[in-house]
């Protein structure tokens, strides 16, 4: 049984077909990245898996069950700031357990432990506007992982960070993921990015989406680079560069299509 399974998923808004029959399966514990040109509907795929959006036709299954309404088995790391600005870092992280009915004191204790694991020890009293972009991402990560979801959906989570912070966060994400990120089995990760290097260095498999409209997966590549990986160093290995060249061959055409459409429009 796949952790996530899209079968002929179509998403239409009015006359526009965003997703045109996407089929994709992600196995339990697998780290899959989806790359594609800007604006091709990558986030739409994630929103389907999250249950924030229903397909116009086709099916989406999560751990074998059809997704109907918010997917409680999935945690979502957004590209933008999803922290509640009126709550401190600690209370943001404690929010999930509190929604689930855990007592306040217990939830806060769990939150403190998670803040420490993502490197925010002693920053629990800070409000989002008092934290740097990197700190906010860490808090978001803790907020998601505290609920220990078997599936992690990530929508270009590090794209707004500077390069150094980004490499550091990618390494920490891999460490958390390999350690099971909470204790149990490895989580299934569906990671959206437009950065091919990021996709290759993190993933077990990279899926390339076609240019929009009517986007769908057109190719996929297994990444058999050894783990544990250092995302900064692995980029310089010959194996990485060969893989990069192979995927870029496919991706480039789609990027060019999008680019030409943009110029023509």
């Amino acid at each position, binding site marked *: 049984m796949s952790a996530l399974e899209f079968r002929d998923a179509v998403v239409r808004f009015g006359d526009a077909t965003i997703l045109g029959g996407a089929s994709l399966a992600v196995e339990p514990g697998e780290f899959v990245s989806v790359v594609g040109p800007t604006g091709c509907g990558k986030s739409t795929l994630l929103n389907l898996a*999250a249950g*924030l959006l229903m397909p116009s036709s086709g099916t989406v299954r999560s751990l074998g069950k059809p997704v109907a309404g*918010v997917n*409680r088995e*999935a*945690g*979502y790391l*957004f*590209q*933008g*700031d*999803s*922290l*509640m*600005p*009126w*709550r*401190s870092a600690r209370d943001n992280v404690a*929010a*999930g357990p509190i*929604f*689930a009915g855990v007592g306040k004191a217990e939830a806060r204790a769990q939150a403190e432990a998670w803040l420490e694991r993502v490197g925010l020890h002693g920053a629990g009293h800070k*409000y*989002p*506007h008092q934290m740097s972009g990197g700190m906010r991402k860490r808090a*978001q990560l803790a*907020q*998601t992982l505290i*609920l220990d979801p078997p599936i992690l959906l990530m929508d270009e989570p590090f794209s707004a960070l500077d390069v150094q912070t980004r490499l550091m966060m990618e390494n920490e994400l891999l460490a958390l993921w390999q350690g099971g990120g909470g204790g149990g089995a490895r989580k299934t990760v569906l990671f959206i990015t437009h950065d091919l290097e990021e996709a290759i260095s993190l993933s077990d498999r990279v899926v390339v989406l076609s240019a929009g409209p009517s986007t769908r997966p057109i190719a996929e590549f297994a990444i058999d680079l050894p783990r544990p990986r250092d995302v900064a160093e692995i980029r310089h290995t010959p194996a990485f560069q060969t893989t990069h060249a192979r995927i870029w061959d496919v991706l480039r055409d789609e990027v060019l299509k999008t680019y030409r459409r943009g110029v023509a429009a």
Partner: protein
Amino acid sequence: MISVYRVALAALLIGLWYVGAQTGVLSPLFFGHPTKIALQVVDWFRTGEIYPHLAVTLTETLLAFASGTAGGVLAGLWLGLSPRSLAVLDPFIKAANAMPRVILAPIFAMWFGLGMGSKVALGFTLVFFIVFFNVLQGVREVSPVVLNGTRMLGATRAQLLRHVYLPAAMSWVFSSLHVSVGMAFVGAVIAEYLGSYRGVGYLILQAQGVFDVDSVFAGIAVLTACALVLDTIVTLAESRLLVWQPRADIPRDS
């Protein structure tokens, strides 16, 4: 340095007024006399005559503020979350807001009598719309990312209301606190002035009736002082309640 200029400016204006009144350039019948006004204020507080009136005016202000805010928050949340109701009610809300509401004072006096009720009612209509429009805006501008993020954390609809919509709306309410407290005060005083048997507005009305312009100015001075105190309290409350908001530095005198 700035405070020195401020004191100097105040002294200059009052000094000019004093000289004008003393020499007769400013007719004391119309402009009063600063010394007499000051003595009247002191006298009110010394005899305690002002306290019951002040208490009435401040109670009306507080009740108008509390009821107007509560009403505005409830209506704003409801219509912010129910676009269909908002679409139906929109023209009525616009009409009610565009109407010069001070003109309702005589009607409220007929409905609720000359006591506190009619003053609170007028203050309510003034505060309600300020809070209502701010909450409406707050609910509509809740970040969709925060909303989806909170939903993904398993929040129910009730939890979304309590943990996302309400705090988002309250931040807008607080940002309009200065205006709404001021409006509650204006509502109370105006309604008193238009018909009452107690309150500071009533004192001013009585004094005006006998051409006692010094007492009119004394009443205005007391009201202004009260408004400043209320504003200071609001500023203090704000800095405590909105710690989570990034704040542009308020220029301070050194």
